């Protein structure tokens, strides 16, 4: 015991050690370029597609808010005053786990973080999403609220929303054959209007995201 104390003192009180301790040169601490920090804004225009919000795996990680125009160059982590005039994603650091999915999914390149976008470009990868509609026929009253409210249906069959009988089978869904039938799931844009218009929680929109390698797609 006593021996080791003496040994320590001799070692650490030597001039050499003390000098090294105080004057040694180490590399300065810098963030490496591949470090994936909380996403930042690139200044590109957000189109409010909400793809980032939809892919974020944690609750409350990201929100797309109306923000002041000149705030775009600020890091996203800074909160901004409300009552402004462009849409921008806002990251909440306490919730965000810095997975970078939102950066990768944004079709407009609004966000950046580390080398996510760079590698996405090199690897030529992207996300695609499709929507799956599910109807619980035991809950559905066939009231037609969903098919009348669906914005895609409004485009395909404009008279439908005004109460006319359906004139086209191209709608996403229609009440036909005694039930609510999903006819063209691929046209759904995932807006969830149908979900909010349903009084019985009978229709559900599920977003399915897939990572794709674009070269493969073209082949």
């Amino acid at each position: 015991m006593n021996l080791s104390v003496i040994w320590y003192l001799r070692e650490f009180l030597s001039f050499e050690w003390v000098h090294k301790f105080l004057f040694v040169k180490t590399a300065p601490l810098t963030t490496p370029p591949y470090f994936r920090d909380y996403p930042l804004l690139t200044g590109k225009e957000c189109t409010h597609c909400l793809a980032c919000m939809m892919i974020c795996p944690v609750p409350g990680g990201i929100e797309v808010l109306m923000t002041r125009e000149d705030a775009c160059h600020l890091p996203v982590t800074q909160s901004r005053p409300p009552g402004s005039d462009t849409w921008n994603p806002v990251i909440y650091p306490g919730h965000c786990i810095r997975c970078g999915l939102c950066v990768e999914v944004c079709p407009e390149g609004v966000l950046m973080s580390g080398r996510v976008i760079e590698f996405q470009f090199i690897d030529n990868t992207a996300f695609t999403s499709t929507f799956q509609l599910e109807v619980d026929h035991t809950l559905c009253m066939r009231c037609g609220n969903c098919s009348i409210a669906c914005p895609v249906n409004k485009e395909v069959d404009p008279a439908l929303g005004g109460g006319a009988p359906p004139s086209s089978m191209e709608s996403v869904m229609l009440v036909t054959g005694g039930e609510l039938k999903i006819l063209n799931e691929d046209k759904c844009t995932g807006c969830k209007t149908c979900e909010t218009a349903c009084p019985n929680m009978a229709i559900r929109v599920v977003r399915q995201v897939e990572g794709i390698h674009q070269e493969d797609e073209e082949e």
Partner: protein
Amino acid sequence: MKFDDVLCPFCGCLCDDITVTAEGGRVTGVDNTCLLGTSKFLGDNRLKNPIMRTDDGWKDVTYDEAIASTLDALLEADRPLLYGWSGTHGEAQCIGVHMAELLGAVIDNTSSVCHGPSILAIQEVGHPGCTLGQVKNRADVIIYWGCNPTEAHPRHMSRYTTYADGYFLDNAFRDRTVIVVDVRRTETAELADVFVEIKPGGDYAVLSALRAMVRGRDEMIPDSIAGVSKEQLRHIVEICKNAKFCAVFFGVGLTMTRGKYKNVRNAIELVDELSRHTKATITPMRGHFNVYGSNEVNTWMSGYPYAIDFCRGIAFYNPGETTAVDILARKECDAALIVASDPAAHLPSKCIRHLANIPVVQIDPYPNMTTAFCNLQIPVAVSGIDAEGTAYRMDGVPIRLRKVLETEYPTDTMLLGRIYEAMMEVRGR
């Protein structure tokens, strides 16, 4: 065979955009109908022929025998009651009134147990109503008071109100504000922009408060009325006063709770008050597809909408005395003809007990709860499926029911017509 633009003979919405496919004397498919309409179109447990109760069960009888025994029952009775009428077409309802006059009977329809109070209120203060087309094309504020269209009129919101785009409303459900007032959070309340939860029985007080506030007498309203905060009431008044067109719909939650017809009267007067600031209308959510028609037919034929007593030889109307419920509860009635309704499902048990003790003839295509105690049931064609006729939508618009099936069954008009003719013969007219 496909039929387009068929009417759905179920609820008062009377949807007229149904496509029906019929093959081999059966409806095989329907498009655009809600769950209720679909089950009516596809329902197939009809009675094959008239059935008569005997000491040991049911006996099949012919239509001639059935008519003869109906005549016996009705002609022998001192105080017959002709009840129902809301599920058949106008032509048959006409014969019903003639029959009641000939027999000196009481004729009443199902509105005496649902929207009867609304009619009383309308008789007192009038009816600022409009067609559903006006609502669809113009109304930017919709109020559902004491009704749950999701359950009872499933397509009301998608055809006429919340979700239906109108001439002046391109994006209906963004442009319209929907207010739901009820005692519990119904499915419809989930779709509302504003939900007002009233304590049961508080409708009258809340309506009065709203009236006062529309008049600008805010200061006299206490902070909370029947569980509704003054803040929320003020909010509603603001929405209504700033509306371009405010359409109120109400159901039995208003007519059959404490205050009854006074509630409806108050609601009409609120609409009246609102009309000083904007355009406002009020419409009862009528249940059966042609209960409105029954009121109309009765009114143009006898002067009164329901509960008409012909025992004096002239039409006499006194709801509370001549309504079916009261006549049965006082055990006055000694024979009943039930047409196109199921009293066993909605009359008080006291009345049903009396019905079980007297001869009851039921004219209805399907076995129902009333079958359990009637003495004779005569099946007929279903109005709107294999019988044509006129029906009145909840807003009072008459629409022609279409026929999509050929049938062996007599229609209500034919059957009642035969019974009526035979009655006239017996009575020597």
